[in-house]
C-alpha cells in the first residue's frame, strides 16, 4: 500500500483529508527532460515559444502514447473480445490491461468495476440514465454542488425533469468553497435525496472539495455519491476505496491520453444491479429473437466496438504518469500554483476568482477593464494558450457575477518561466487598454 493510501485511510477530518505527505517535487532539469517527452511543446506559436496553460481543457500527449497508438495500428489492429485470431487476442489483452492499470491507478478493488466509456461526459450520462432512472422517482431529489461543470449538472437536471424530482444545490461561498453548513442543513432537511453529484476539483475555480467527509455524511443518509474526477485524477493521488465514493468519473484526454476515452468506477453491487445504458453487441450474454440476457459489468455497459487504440494509448499515459509519480506531480503543481497565485496577485489590475485554501493548479482571474476574450486573443499572440470563457460552468460564472474569466490550468510540464511570460503578457495588455 502506498504512503498516500495510508494517509487517506487514517484521515479523520476535512483538514487532514486534504493534507498530503511531503513528496519531493520536480527539479527544473527534470521538468526540461519531461518537456522533451511532449512533441507539441517544442513548437513556436506566433514566433514565441508555446506556453500551454490550458490543461484543464485537455492535456498534451507524451511520445509514449503517440508511439503506442502508432504501434497498435501498425502491428496489432484487431477488434476486442471477438476474434480467436492473433490480432484480436493481443488487442483484447492490451485493452484489458489498460483497464487494469486504471483500476490500480485509483485503487479500485477490481478492474471489473471500471467501465470504459467514450468520455467523462458519457460516464455521467451513463450513471444518470441507468442508475438515476432506476432510483430517482417522483418526489425524490438529486443534490448537486454549485461548482459543477455542465457535464455533471445538465444530466441530473434533465433526470429530475423527467422523473418529476427536485434538483437541489449546495451553494458556493465567496472564496469558491462549497458551503458545508448549507450542505449539512440540506442533508438534515431533505430526506428524499437519492444522489449527490459533486466534483473532486472545480474545473472553473480549482477548488478541491472535501469529498471524503461529504461522502461520509451522504452515506449516513443513504445517499449514493457520484464524483466527477475529471480534474483530479491526473493531478493528485486518488483512492476510491479510501474515499468510499460510489461512482468516480475520469477523462482519458485530461490525463495525457487520447480523446474518446472516459472512465467510470462504480461499486460492483451498484453496477451489478443497473440496467444497460446502450444496447447492442459486446454487452450481451445470450440473444434469441424474443429475449436477451445481458453480460455482467463492465461489459454490460460497453456496447459496440470501443476506441481500442485510444484505450491502449491511455494505458501508456498511466504508465507515464506513474513513472513520474502522482504525489510528485501533486507537489510540483502545488508549487506552480503558489507561484502563479503570488505573481498574479502582485498585479493590481488582476483579481483571482476562487481563493479556496485547498486548490488544484487552476487559477481563474479577471483583469480590470479587459474582457477575457481580448486577453485570450492577445496572449495567443505571445504564444500563451489559456482559456477565456465560462468553462462550461455558467452557474459558477453567475455566482461570481462575471460573464467569463481567463483561466490557467497547470501541468507538471509547465514552468515558472511560462508564468513569468504570462505576467509580462498581462502587463502589456493592461498598458494597451489604458
Amino acid at each position: 500500500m502506498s504512503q498516500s493510501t495510508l494517509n487517506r485511510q487514517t484521515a479523520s477530518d476535512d483538514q487532514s483529508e486534504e493534507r498530503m505527505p511531503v513528496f519531493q517535487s520536480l527539479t527544473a532539469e527534470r521538468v526540461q527532460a519531461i518537456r522533451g517527452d511532449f512533441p507539441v511543446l517544442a513548437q513556436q506559436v506566433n514566433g514565441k515559444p508555446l506556453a500551454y496553460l490550458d490543461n484543464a481543457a485537455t492535456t498534451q500527449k507524451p511520445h509514449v502514447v503517440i508511439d503506442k497508438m502508432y504501434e497498435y495500428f501498425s502491428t496489432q489492429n484487431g477488434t476486442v473480445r471477438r476474434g480467436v485470431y492473433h490480432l484480436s487476442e493481443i488487442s483484447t489483452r492490451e485493452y484489458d490491461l489498460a483497464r487494469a492499470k486504471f483500476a490500480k491507478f485509483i485503487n479500485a478493488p477490481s478492474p471489473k468495476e471500471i467501465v470504459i466509456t467514450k468520455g467523462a461526459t458519457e460516464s455521467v450520462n451513463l450513471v444518470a440514465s441507468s442508475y438515476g432512472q432506476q432510483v430517482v422517482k417522483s418526489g425524490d431529489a438529486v443534490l448537486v454542488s454549485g461548482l459543477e461543470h455542465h457535464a455533471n449538472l445538465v444530466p441530473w437536471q434533465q433526470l429530475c425533469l423527467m422523473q418529476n424530482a427536485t434538483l437541489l444545490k449546495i451553494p458556493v461561498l465567496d472564496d469558491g468553497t462549497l458551503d458545508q453548513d448549507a450542505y449539512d442543513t440540506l442533508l438534515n432537511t431533505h430526506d428524499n435525496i437519492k444522489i449527490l453529484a459533486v466534483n473532486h476539483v472545480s474545473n472553473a475555480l480549482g477548488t478541491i472539495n472535501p469529498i471524503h467527509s461529504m461522502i461520509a455524511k451522504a452515506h449516513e443518509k443513504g445517499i449514493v455519491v457520484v464524483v466527477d474526477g475529471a480534474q483530479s485524477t491526473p493531478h493528485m493521488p486518488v483512492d476510491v476505496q479510501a474515499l468510499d465514493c460510489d461512482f468516480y468519473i475520469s477523462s482519458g484526454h485530461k490525463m495525457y491520453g487520447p480523446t474518446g476515452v472516459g472512465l467510470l468506477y462504480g461499486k460492483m453491487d451498484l453496477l451489478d444491479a443497473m440496467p444497460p445504458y446502450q444496447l447492442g453487441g459486446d454487452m450481451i450474454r445470450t440473444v434469441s429473437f424474443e429475449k436477451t440476457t445481458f453480460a455482467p459489468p463492465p461489459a454490460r455497459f460497453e456496447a459496440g466496438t470501443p476506441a481500442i487504440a485510444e484505450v491502449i494509448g491511455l494505458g501508456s499515459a498511466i504508465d507515464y504518469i506513474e513513472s513520474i509519480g502522482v504525489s510528485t506531480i501533486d507537489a510540483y503543481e502545488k508549487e506552480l500554483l503558489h507561484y502563479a497565485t503570488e505573481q498574479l496577485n502582485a498585479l493590481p489590475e488582476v483579481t483571482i476568482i476562487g481563493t479556496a485554501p485547498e486548490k488544484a493548479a487552476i487559477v481563474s482571474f479577471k483583469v480590470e477593464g479587459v474582457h477575457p476574450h481580448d486577453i485570450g486573443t492577445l496572449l495567443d499572440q505571445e504564444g500563451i494558450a489559456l482559456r477565456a470563457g465560462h468553462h462550461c460552468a455558467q452557474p459558477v460564472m453567475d455566482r461570481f457575477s462575471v460573464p467569463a474569466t481567463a483561466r490557467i490550468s497547470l501541468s507538471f510540464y509547465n514552468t515558472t518561466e511560462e508564468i513569468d511570460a504570462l505576467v509580462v503578457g498581462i502587463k502589456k495588455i493592461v498598458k494597451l487598454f489604458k
Partner: protein
Amino acid sequence: MSDYNELYQQIILEHNKKPHNFRIIEDANAYSLGKNPLCGDQFAVYLKLNQDNVVEDIAFQGEGCAISKASASLMTKALKGKSKTEAATMISTFHQLLTGSLSETSAKDVLGRLTILSGVKQYPVRVKCATLAWHTLSAALAGQEEATTED
C-alpha cells in the same frame, strides 16, 4: 505589441474605452437584445426611425469584449442619418467583409472606416464578437426583440 495592431488598432481600443452612443433611447421605436451564447456577451440596440424610415438616433448598451464593443460603437456612428435600405446594405456588406467574401477596398464605399474591423477575419473565433451588434441591429430593424449570433 506591434503584432497586435492588425486587430487591436488604436481606433478600436478608443471605442472600447469610450464607446459612442452607449446609452438607452427611452422613446425608441425599434429595439432588440442580441446575445452570443458561446461567450455570454450581450448588447441591446435601440433605434429611433422617423416617418421616412431614416435612422434619427441609434444607441446601444451591454457587455462585451473590445472587438464587440468597438464594432457596436462604430456601427451606431455610421448608421445615423441612414435609411433603412442603406442600413440593410451596410449590414450585408459588413458580414461579407468579415467572412472574407468582400475585400476591404470594395467594402470601403459602403462602410467607410468600419473596414478597420476587417482584421478580425484573421481570428475566426472572434468574428462573432464583431458581428454581434450587427445581428442585433438587423433583428431590431426586422421587428424582432431578440437576436443571436447562432442562427
